Each structure stands twice: as C-alpha cells, then as structure tokens.
C-alpha cells in the first residue's frame, strides 16, 4: 500500500499547514499530498476545519478578516503561500464550488461569460462555444438552452449548483475544490451532481478535492480519503489513505470507528 501511494503522481504538496481565526487555531499541522487526476474526499465531524482547509488552497483565506495561515503549499513549481503570487491566476487554476449554490444575480449565460471576459477571452463566438460546451458537460444544456438570458436565480437548487460548476469549468482549472457541493440539494439533485463529479474525473482527469459529510457518497466517488478530527478545539489530520484501505482496513482506530458509524 505504501509503495502504491508513492508511485502516484502528487499534484499538490501541503506541509505543516495551520490556520488561525484571530487567536483561535482552526486546524494545525496538516501535511498531505494531493494525488493527481483523482478524487480526494475529506471527511470529519463538524467544525474540524475542513472548509477552512480548502480556503487555504486557493488563498480565499486572504479575504477573511483575522485569518492567518502558516505552513507550505506547493503546486508544481508554484509556492501558493508566497504572498506575491498572482491570486487571480491561481484561482483560475484552482476552481471552487461552495456548499450553497451561489450563481450571480445575472442571466444564465452571463454567469459563465462574465468570468471568461474577466480572464481576457474577448472573442464572443469563443465565449458562446465555451458556454455551450460547459453547459453540456454539466448536463444543463438541454434544460436551459432556450432560456440562456433568464435570470440564474430562478433555476432550481440542483440546476444552480450545476451552473456554478459549469462557470468554474469554463475557466479550465486543473483542480476543483468542492465544499459539500451536494449537502444543500435534495437526493435526486444530489445524485445528479455526484454522477457529474465522477464523470469530470473520468472524462477530463480533473483532480478533485471534495469535502463531504456523506460517508456513503465518499465511498462511492473517492479514490483517496482523509479524516480530519477535532482534537481539543483544533482540527488535525488523523488518516490519509487510498479509499479502499480507508474504508475497509484503516490504520487508525478513530477512522475505523468513524467509517463504521460509531463516532462522529
């Protein structure tokens, strides 16, 4: 197992990452390597710092007042923690999907073209092509192709979430961060988004890091899994392993208890 893990290409290396809100430590000393072209699921009880962890990876933590991060994150040759890097370009490489579907109060089409224009795609035909392409990718095209000008806020919850995924895909990121993307959706919409995540990994070899509270879902989609836990009042990484091992023969007894539904 250990050998198998070292053979896998790792895309992002995270070393001794800690994060504080004012004085309060949210999580501490997290070291892990994100394997390339695979789905890594992060599970753990509420408040153990999963969402906070994700915000460090695309430097969204910069926007949160009083939030300080320490440690090291390397993406290829790029040191993500370097304060001087271009966060706009970084966030284009690392897309993020939030728990609550949050399309902008604009038309469906503009939700996708607005970020594209921002990233310098000036040609309108090119943008139209991308709009159709990504809406096809998320399975929304047939549902909305006749009302691209309609306000995105009138879509259903599941459609909104797929639109948010589409507008992120339009920027062709290398990595997708997903923070409980299904937990605000009903079971059917949730199933659709889950299938979409699997297809993104299969068709386009995306590297996906997904936080989920749904262990069954993690089991279905993940190639790797990490367990975060609150130790005292501060989050820690308990175990990181290939999904097979994580769910069937974990090394740590806390993982064992958690995946068997005894704890958490």
């Amino acid at each position, binding site marked *: 197992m250990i050998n198998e893990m070292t053979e896998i290409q790792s895309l992002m290396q995270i070393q001794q990452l800690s994060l504080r809100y004012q004085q309060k430590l949210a999580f501490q000393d997290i070291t892990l390597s994100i394997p390339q072209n695979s789905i890594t699921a992060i599970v753990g009880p509420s408040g153990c710092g999963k969402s906070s962890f994700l915000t460090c990876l*695309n430097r*969204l933590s910069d*926007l949160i*007042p009083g939030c300080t991060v320490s440690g090291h994150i390397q993406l290829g040759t790029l040191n993500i923690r370097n304060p001087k890097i271009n*966060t*706009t*370009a*970084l*966030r*284009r490489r690392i*897309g*993020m999907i*939030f728990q*609550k579907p*949050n399309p*902008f*109060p*604009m*038309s469906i089409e503009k939700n996708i073209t*607005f*970020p594209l224009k*921002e*990233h310098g795609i000036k040609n309108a035909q090119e943008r139209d092509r991308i709009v159709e392409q990504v809406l096809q990718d998320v399975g929304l095209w047939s549902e909305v192709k006749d009302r691209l000008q309609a*306000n995105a*806020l009138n879509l259903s919850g599941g459609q909104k979430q797929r639109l*948010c995924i589409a*507008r*992120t895909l339009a*920027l062709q990121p290398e990595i997708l961060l997903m923070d409980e993307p299904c937990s605000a959706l009903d079971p059917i919409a949730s199933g659709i988004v889950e299938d979409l995540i699997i297809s993104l990994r299969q068709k386009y070899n995306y590297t996906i890091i997904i936080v989920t509270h749904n262990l069954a879902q993690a089991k279905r989609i993940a190639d790797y899994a990490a367990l975060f836990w609150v130790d005292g009042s501060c989050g820690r990484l308990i175990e990181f392993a290939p999904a097979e091992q994580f769910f069937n023969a974990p090394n740590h007894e806390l993982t064992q208890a958690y995946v068997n539904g005894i704890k958490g």
Partner: protein
Amino acid sequence: MIVNEKQQGIDRIISLLFWFVPLLITAIFIWILGDIVRGGIGQLNWAFLTTAPIDTGRQGGIAPILVSTLLILGVCLVVSLPIGIGTAILLAEFTSNSNWFGRLVRRSLDVLAGVPSIVFGLFGNAFFSKTLGLGFSILSGGLTLACMVLPILIRSTEAGLSAVPIEYRLSSASLGISRTSTLWHLLLPAATPGLLVGLVLGIGRAIAETAALIFTSGYVDRMPTSLLDSGRSLSIHIFDLSMNVTGGDANAYGSALVLILILLLINAIAAWLASKYNRSL
C-alpha cells in the same frame, strides 16, 4: 377560555389601531394633495409654465423659476452623485467597521444628516458665496444642496453595498475576478436600489428646500443666463408668494402643484429605473 376571549379582544383592538394609523396618514396626505390640486389646477396651463412672472408673481408664469430650480437640482446631482457613491464605496469596501477613520466619517455623516437646513444655508453663504466668491448664484445654491443631500446619499448607498451577501464576494474571488470588477459588476448593481432610495429622498429634501437657498442662490426671479446668475427656486417662489405678496395665493397654489408634480415624476422615474433594473439582471 375567558382569558382567550379577552386576548382576542385585545388583539382586535390592536390590529384596529394598526389599521388606523396608516389610514390617518394617507388621509392627511390626500387632504393636502386635494387642497393643492383644487387651488392650483386652475392656474396650471402651458402659458403658466412658459412665461415669466409679472408684478412680483401675482400675474404671469413661472418659467425662469422652473429653469432655476432644475439648474440648482442639476448642479446638486452632478456634484453629489459621484462624491456620494465614491465615499459609500470607500466606507463599505475599504474601511472595516473597527477602522477609526471609517467610524469618524460615519459618525460625522449621521450628525450632518440631522443638521437643520438653515445651518447649511449659512455655511453655503459663508463658504461658497463669500469665501469662494461665487456670490448669490445657482452654483452656490446647488453646491449647498449637494452638501445637504450627501449624508443621505452616502449612508443609503453604503447600506445597499453592505447588504450584498458575502457569498457573492467569495465566489467572485474564487473565480479569479478582480476586486474592481466585482465592485462594478456585482456589488454596485446590487446596491442600486439602495442608491435610488437615497437619491429620491435626497432630491425630495433638496427640491423642497427654502432655508438653505435663500442665502445662497438668492431670490431673483429673472431667467438665469449662466450658473453664476442668481436664481429663485420653486419652493422660495411659493414661500414668497404666500408670505410677502398679497394676492399671490393663486399662483402660489399653481407653483406648489408644479412642485408636487415634479416630485411625483421623480418618484415614478426612480421606481421605473428600479423595476427595469431588476428585470435586466
């Protein structure tokens, strides 16, 4: 059971009270409006709007006064809109709640919003008319009004900006969209209804103003030829006709009706803009 019936009785009385107050307010408004329409409708015709006042306003129309009013209002808006929106952006986006500078500016604005207009008039007279040497002019008057409406404009725009959910900012940033574009394409549109409310309140306050204008734009009732000319506003004209000119009541009513129609028109435009805005989102 008995307690319940008693409770129901109290509920009924309270809900009656809740109906009574708005009814009363509406009734008073309609009464005032009715009075002005009844007194003024006879005066209102094309000639009234397009001719100059004769015999200190007893006869003739209000053309120069209408022009002065619109010019004063125009100066006020041209100056206060950019400064107001700029300050609101600075306060909402670039100063945190705990920042001493932001707190100082907010507190000062709240105090300014409550200052009586006569004080603005005296300030405008001392600063714009005398110190800057603009004299009694439409420019002085418009600038003084701008100072007066700025606090309302800034605070309501700022409230609109602050009400935009943090999710928009985070998801915008996560798509690599710059702060400027986020502000321009997401935050300002979302704050526009707040801005419009502030604008309508501000214009309402400005157009009804007499005290601040007497000392700044003056009350010459000739047609202005430049912004440096003195000009009489509608509200001053009404005040003058009803207080200082015997036999001016009919034209005072006519002018008041015009003033109210302008106010209603501005309200309608704002409502139309707001609804157009919501549809085009």
